């Protein structure tokens, strides 16, 4: 256990150093994360104004609150591992990681958490600025805010496991970009990034309930906004645990199978 703690501490320093080195990359990444929720915030506010103030129970201020919270939640649970694995496998940089006596997922988790810690203040500042501009209707409910903490943590773990496992597709093919894009498009729809899931047609909502996407982004968002009943929250956490179990099993299985086909070309 101490060994792993040391690894996390060391990864923290490494990530910090590389962040200080690549500041411009940070800006680009930030624009991507802010622009998308901002676009849909504006579009849906326009819709609600076009239809006399409210769409399916959402006013412009509700949309503002939804997309600003969504932006933060997405930021907290986001990973970029799928872009990275293709490079690691193709260039063979994965090989030294395999020689270490711990599972490589640990350094990825540590890297992810460190990046989040560094960028979170900036993200919160942007959220505050957007709140000043768009005047969101934000009425936090104490129990929901308390439940948000474990829910968003679970969301992070589930999303990390799913995307880390998916990233392993790089072991079998060098063309992961089409697969990645398919994943992101599904994510956009079923996680609630395009619109609150309540506004989507019934079949889409049913699919979203089964798939992991909603439980990693939309669910924590709706919870923090106080739009869920305690029963819905319990059901949601049940789905999160179910996907956590599925993710763990899949991850171990795919990782082992992937290592067998990995030939370390280019290393």
């Amino acid at each position, binding site marked *: 256990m101490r060994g792993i703690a040391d690894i996390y501490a060391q990864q923290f320093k490494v990530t910090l150093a590389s962040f200080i080195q690549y500041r411009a990359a940070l800006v680009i990444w930030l624009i991507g994360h802010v622009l998308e929720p901002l676009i849909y915030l*504006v579009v849906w506010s326009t819709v609600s104004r076009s239809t006399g103030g409210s769409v399916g129970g959402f006013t412009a201020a509700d949309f503002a609150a939804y997309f600003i919270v969504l932006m933060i939640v997405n930021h907290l649970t986001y990973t970029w591992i799928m872009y990275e694995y293709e490079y690691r496998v193709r260039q063979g940089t994965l090989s030294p990681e395999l020689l270490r006596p711990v599972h490589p997922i640990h350094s990825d988790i540590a890297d992810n958490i460190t990046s989040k810690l560094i960028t979170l203040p900036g993200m919160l500042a942007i959220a505050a600025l957007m709140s000043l501009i768009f005047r969101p209707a934000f009425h936090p409910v104490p129990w929901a805010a308390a439940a948000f903490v474990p829910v968003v943590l679970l969301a992070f773990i589930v999303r990390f496991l799913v995307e880390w496992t998916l990233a392993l597709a790089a072991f079998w093919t060098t063309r992961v970009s089409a697969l990645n894009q398919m994943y992101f498009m599904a994510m956009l729809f079923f996680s609630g990034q395009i619109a609150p899931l309540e506004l989507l047609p019934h079949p889409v909502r049913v699919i979203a309930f089964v798939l992991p996407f909603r439980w990693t982004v939309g669910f924590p968002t709706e919870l923090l906004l106080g739009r869920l009943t305690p029963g819905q929250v319990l059901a949601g956490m049940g789905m999160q645990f179910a996907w956590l179990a599925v993710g763990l099993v899949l991850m171990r299985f795919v990782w082992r199978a992937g290592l067998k086909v990995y030939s370390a070309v280019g290393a």
Partner: protein
Amino acid sequence: MRYLRLFLVFFRVGVLGELSYRSNFVMHLIESIMELGTALAGLAVVFSYTSTLGGWRPAEILALVGVYFLVSGAIRMVIQPSMERLIEGVHEGTLDFTLTKPEDAQLLVSIQRVEIWNITDVVLGSGVLAVALVRLGANVGVSEAAGFAAALAAGGIIVYSFWLMLATLAFWFVRVENMLMIFSSMYEAGRWPVGFYPRWLRFMLTFLIPVAFATTVPAQALAGRLSVSTLAGAYALAAVLAVLSRAFWRVGVRRYSSASS
């Protein structure tokens, strides 16, 4: 005429180069279709709640989506790869070979690389645009079509000049690729009419990162809402940026020391 022939030559070289990687075409096509599918599904959701959006009818927004894909495909096919190559050339000194050729070097660097598979976006965008035109039907007359063509041409000049200015910064600074990336990521905002955005963002998308003239304004023309003053403004900006980018290029080349060659 000679410039057109030059462009066709580079185009053919680009095609020949990429033909060795034919499966890339299928990949690009799948990705383009998915992107377009998501955009259209998003529109379907929005318009299931309202019949007009900020004064735009569904067919008009559809036309905008078509223009968006068309323009972004053109950028990704020619402008972006060529500008990236230009930056590379400045860093590595390979720009020498271009400068010694007996043609206008600015033209040569602007069309030096064609990533032909991105033509899938151009084709799909044109398809969407055609569907939108059929839906708009009789509302699109000769004047709308002419306005559209004029606005699209101005938008093209603006986008090209802007990219060239960014790329020529490579003559002075080292890491310029990131700035190109910023433009690419901001471009996504052009999928919706810029009139929807708050004033500060609309200003940014019009003047700082001129997305508006490449997407919203041509679509406005098709919808019959393009005022003469907007079109004149587009051409004024196009002229200013074209002259400015030419100046950037000239001064930059004079500074160019072909350091690493």
